[in-house]
């Protein structure tokens, strides 16, 4: 009976409670979740369009003091082969991106122990000289810059914005629950700080995305807490453009070594994607994660709540470090989208179609 009520409620466009979300997560079949998520997606995006962005991940450094247990990418400061990209390398990567029709750079890096805020401001000014949208610095990086500089996070965001930052990626959210973060990423900013930084960014006029990395040590209730925190902030600011959930990729990570965590299966990925689409009724876009799921499951995601294929990711390093190496060209993304019965459209960070 409860399921019938939820079907009525969700298909009528009504918001669901946390308790209802847990019920769906536990009881609904894969078909039911797909049906409900697709209904929400179609209400928000009645046009049969699937968008994607052409961009490149640039990781300005892999040196990181955070040492998150789920990460296979970082190098501790005392490890000799960590790197910081030079301006020449940045310039070359930007030129390559633009040559491929790219419109933005996703700029993220490790929490470097001693680069000053001026270094990042200078990097932004240099990149903006190349005339490209810079989607950069996730909340843990901003938090880190604040701690190093002695400024507050709002001031750091403002300074970066003045230097040319266009928008902020939703990385480092992992699971927005303090218990989970304390256990697997104790050196990273806590859930309240992550949300506060996004709040400040939205207030300063920067759009951001939100992500979730699930399928490790978190409980179902903690996934719900994550969705609730994101939905509540979006109610206040409307600043999130998109939500991007993806499963933890365990290979070569300390967390998998100590906790025997198996890789989240495709069915569990599609369920979580659909559950995100159903709960986050105030976030316009949900991205499929082909980088972790591969082209086949990413295509199916379009029937489980996703309306965006994410990025062509001309370069990707972090997931690759965890042993997953899917590659997709723009042409291949367009073919998959068309094969699924949708029209592919290139977009910008703010989801304006080109």
């Amino acid at each position, binding site marked *: 009976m409860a399921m019938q009520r939820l079907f009525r409620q969700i298909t009528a466009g009504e918001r669901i409670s946390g308790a209802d979300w847990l019920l769906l997560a536990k009881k609904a079949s*894969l078909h039911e979740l797909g049906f409900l998520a697709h209904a929400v997606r179609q209400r928000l995006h009645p046009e049969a369009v699937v968008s994607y962005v052409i961009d490149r991940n640039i990781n300005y450094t892999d040196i990181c003091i955070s040492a998150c247990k789920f990460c296979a990418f970082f190098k501790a400061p005392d490890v000799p082969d960590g790197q910081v990209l030079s301006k020449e390398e940045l310039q070359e990567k930007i030129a390559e991106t633009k040559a491929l029709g790219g419109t933005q750079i996703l700029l993220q890096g490790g929490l470097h122990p001693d680069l000053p805020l001026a270094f990042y401001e200078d990097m932004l000014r240099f990149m903006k000289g190349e005339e490209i949208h810079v989607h950069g610095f996730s909340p843990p990086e901003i938090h880190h810059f604040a701690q190093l500089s002695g400024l507050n996070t709002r001031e750091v965001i403002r300074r970066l914005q003045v230097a040319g930052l266009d928008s902020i990626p939703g990385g480092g959210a992992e699971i927005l629950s303090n218990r989970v973060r304390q256990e697997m990423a104790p050196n990273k900013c806590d859930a309240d700080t992550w949300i506060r930084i996004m709040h400040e960014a939205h207030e300063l006029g920067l759009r951001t995305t939100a992500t979730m990395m699930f399928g490790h040590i978190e409980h179902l209730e903690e996934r719900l807490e994550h969705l609730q925190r994101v939905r509540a902030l979006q109610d206040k600011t409307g600043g999130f453009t998109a939500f991007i959930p993806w499963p933890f990729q365990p290979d070569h990570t300390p967390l998998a070594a100590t906790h025997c965590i198996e890789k989240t299966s495709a069915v569990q990925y599609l369920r979580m994607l659909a559950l995100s689409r159903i709960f986050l009724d105030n976030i316009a876009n949900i991205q499929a994660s082909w980088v972790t799921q591969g082209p086949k499951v990413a295509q199916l995601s379009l029937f489980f709540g996703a309306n965006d294929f994410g990025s062509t990711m001309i370069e990707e390093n972090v997931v690759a470090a965890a042993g997953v190496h899917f590659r997709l060209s723009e042409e291949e993304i367009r073919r998959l989208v068309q094969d699924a*019965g949708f029209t592919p459209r290139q977009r910008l960070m703010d989801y304006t179609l080109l």
Partner: protein
Amino acid sequence: MNAYMDAHIEQAGLGPILEKVRAGKRLDLHDGAQLYGHSDILALGYLANIVRERINGDKAYFIYNQHINYSNICINLCKFCAFGRKREDALAYEMSIEEIRHKVRERLDEPITEVHVVGGVHPDLPFAYYTDMLRAIHEERPGVHIQAFTCVEIHHLAKIAGKPVDTTLNLLMEAGLGSMPGGGAEVFSPRIRQLTCADKISGEEWLQVAKTAHNLGLKTNATMLYGHIESIEERLDHLDALRRLQDESGGFLAFIPLAFHPKNTELGVGHSNTTGINDLKNIAVSRLMLDNFPHIKAYWVMIGPKIAQIALAFGADDLDGTVTEERITHMAGAETEQALGHKTLIRLIQEAGRQPVQRDTLYNVLEEY
């Protein structure tokens, strides 16, 4: 049953098919064309799942098996195949009986219940090679079930033996043949065979061998190779021919849609891998059309473990098995693992909300998890 889902299926124009499916009535080719032409993969999955659960409940089967591809030397050299080689090709190989014995012996410590044997259509291995092979496998692993030789190979072996197909099958059964895999069916359409595998036996001949086997009490599987140049109509004619033979003989165990892998094949130039939607559509439509087949297999080697797992909600009830050393699909660039562990298969099934059942070749239950 869910009124909202049903209403959605009706809105998608599939109401009459839903009615037939619920009533257990047979779908006609027109229905099949509508299903294949439909873009709502969720609706197709929902329909196929009704049939799947009626026949197999929540069970999802797997088997502990070993694949042996005894030779890739082949006189057919089909254009969709990356496995077959001419005798003089540098990559051509054939295993001696002793090598086959060794392969079986190597894995005696594993609880393998089926040895699965498929090879090329070899120009000159004598008939005794095949009967010796079967006997040797049984000597090394007494009691194992040998599923061997597609209808194409059987047709060829009958020629080599100089005997009719039924006599040939009897000789192979005496030597230990337990059942036959479903390969070599490709697409039965003469047009497709002319364009892709002109030297292979015709669809009618394939069906005739299967029928002969069924009449002798041998169970077989059936396949369809999709995702190349075949039309929807040709797929449906293929399914229809299988359904008609199954009505007559009841000898098919499972139907296995096989995704074309273009890499390293002559036919594959300019072709992409099948998409997830295409894979699931073929699973769902075959489950709906082949109402008299007990099982639909999502062969993870072909479509990947991820889509195979999802397929358990789109009509499939079997993931095949642990499969080690598969060569045929991997020669065509399949990026799937060579083997999936027992534990991984069980976990994938459980995470799909199904009950894992380890089966033997004939679908007798060995263990439920």
